[in-house]
């Protein structure tokens, strides 16, 4: 479903060119659970951003569900992000003035969904993520784990096919980090394609397929064949 061919991404900093992605070839199947590890600056985030259509590669081709998306217009890419891709970030990126429920509702508002449907979906999501009693709380009134759960609820409320998580536990204590991992894996069990960038080897090893990146290239790839380890 995700097919990257010779993806190259370069950044020009001053008069130096940094190659963030060095002609990456990568195929990811539907429903896979993939972890990306590697040293800082090896291009993990850049790869995730290219997959999530937040960043455009300088060369190469990207086929998403068989469709070439490399050269789509801003508007078409936005539409794909809206409906097919969910993001979870290290720093949550909740909107501080909106309540938990409103943050979760936001993607549906942006997609123009009608109010009644939004309300029922938000209620369902809140209870599914154990946030029912936090619906009206603003982000600064929530713990880190709760914030990340709100963020995951928001990322999945449009029922995307792909969930991209960049260091989702990087800002959480061990316990709430575990919580978040459980939620993500549960979503994967229900069919979502899950791609997690992480520094945490314990978390990385849980994935069915693990790749490591070094200096903008994929160094090791356990491959699709490997069956995911049994859940906790």
């Amino acid at each position, binding site marked *: 479903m995700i097919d990257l061919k010779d993806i190259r991404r370069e950044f020009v900093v001053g008069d130096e060119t940094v190659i963030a992605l060095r002609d990456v070839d990568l195929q990811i199947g539907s429903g896979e659970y993939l972890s990306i590890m590697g040293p800082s600056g090896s291009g993990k*985030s*850049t790869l995730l*951003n290219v997959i*999530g259509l*937040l*960043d455009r590669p300088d060369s190469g081709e990207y086929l998403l569900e068989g469709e070439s998306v490399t050269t789509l217009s*801003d*508007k078409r890419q*936005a*539409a*794909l*992000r*809206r*409906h097919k*891709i969910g*993001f979870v*970030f290290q*720093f949550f*990126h909740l*909107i*501080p*003035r*909106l309540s938990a429920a409103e943050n979760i509702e*936001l*993607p549906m*508002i*942006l*997609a*123009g969904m*009608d109010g009644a449907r939004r309300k029922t979906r938000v209620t369902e999501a809140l209870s599914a993520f154990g946030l029912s009693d936090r619906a009206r709380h603003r982000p600064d009134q929530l713990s880190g784990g709760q914030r990340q759960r709100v963020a995951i609820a*928001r990322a999945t409320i449009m029922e995307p096919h792909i969930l991209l998580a960049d260091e989702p536990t990087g800002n959480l204590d061990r316990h709430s980090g575990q919580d978040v991992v459980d939620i993500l894996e549960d979503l994967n069990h229900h069919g979502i394609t899950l791609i997690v960038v992480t520094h945490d080897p314990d978390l990385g090893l849980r994935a069915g397929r693990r790749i490591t990146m070094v200096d903008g290239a994929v160094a090791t790839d356990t491959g699709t064949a490997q069956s995911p380890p049994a859940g906790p």
Partner: protein
Amino acid sequence: MKLIDIIRFAGKAATGYPTRTVLMLLAMAIGVGSVVVLSALGEGARRYVIGEFSALGTNLLIVLPGRSETVGGAPPLLGITPRDLTIADAMALRTSSAIRYIAPISVGAAPVSRAGRERETTILGSTADLYPLRQLEMAAGRFLPPGDPERGEAICVLGHTLKEELFGSAPALGETLRIGDYRYRIIGVLSEKGQSVGLDMSDIVVVPVASAQALFNNPALFRVMIEARDRDAIERARKAVVRIIKERHDGEDDITVITQDAVLATFDRIFAALTLTVAGIAAISLAVAGILIMNVMLIAVSQRTSEVGLLKALGTPGRRIVTLFLAESAILSLIGAALGLVIAALAIWVMSLIFPQFPIAAPLWSLAAAVGVALFTGLVFGVLPARRAARLDPVLSLSRR
């Protein structure tokens, strides 16, 4: 995204940052408020002058001796010495069917005394027609009786203030009054009615026009006031006056006829222009408010870069982000404008308490214009910040926390 949701989202964003919002609202409110207040003052001045002039009567024509080239101007001081306007001239106008009332007027000042109290007072000589023409009202007695205007009876009608001064609360009807060297019997007292341009009708003695001429020893009239039968008859009446007087003055065109309509129209134009000018000057403050909006929105965009990045990650195209930020400036402008209207209403109310006789009132167009200009500046000055937001790189925006 639905319009209502755009408005709600932008509204929440606008009200989510109180300090900058208050600052921006204040600037807008002051701009809108000054536009409305200044145009209300202009409009008030217009109404005041028009009101004063309308209080003279309706469908009036004023005949002045002397030729003036500019209608509505003062009679010339130079040029040919005009022939006097006489009572006979005035009465000759009665032949025109376009004319309803004719009041020849002779004005002067003379000492008025009674029981030792004496004071210099304006004496107005006229006829019975002045009463309906000037829309006067009696407090007591009656006005000058109809009759031959060439006959000067020794009767008079007192203005309200003058009566109070000379008689206090004692009745004045039937009493006699000394004006100059003559004694006059008081037959009526005018009711308290506001003054109009030039002449305070409450501090005055009205006598038959022939009596006034005898008193001042001057057969010339000060002017003749004429009421046309109706609005449509004004022009016919004017032509009739010019024709009849010309005939009587041996073909000499030596009078000036001012129509109240023309004067009113002139004042109207002058004050409307004045009001527009001051409103325009005040609108400059709205532009200043617009620049402030731009600044505040630029700050808002830089404060909310990660929010913009998030919106993009959630699938919001750049165009929609422009819309969201523009809606935010529009909402702030409108709230500011509404506040400005409230401030203006308060200011106008306070001024109307301080100057009750001044008819201050905000013209409707100024309300619409102020709000419209506020919205317009809000949008225009909101474009740059909104476009800057839309151009933000989502990856960079999201990498900061």
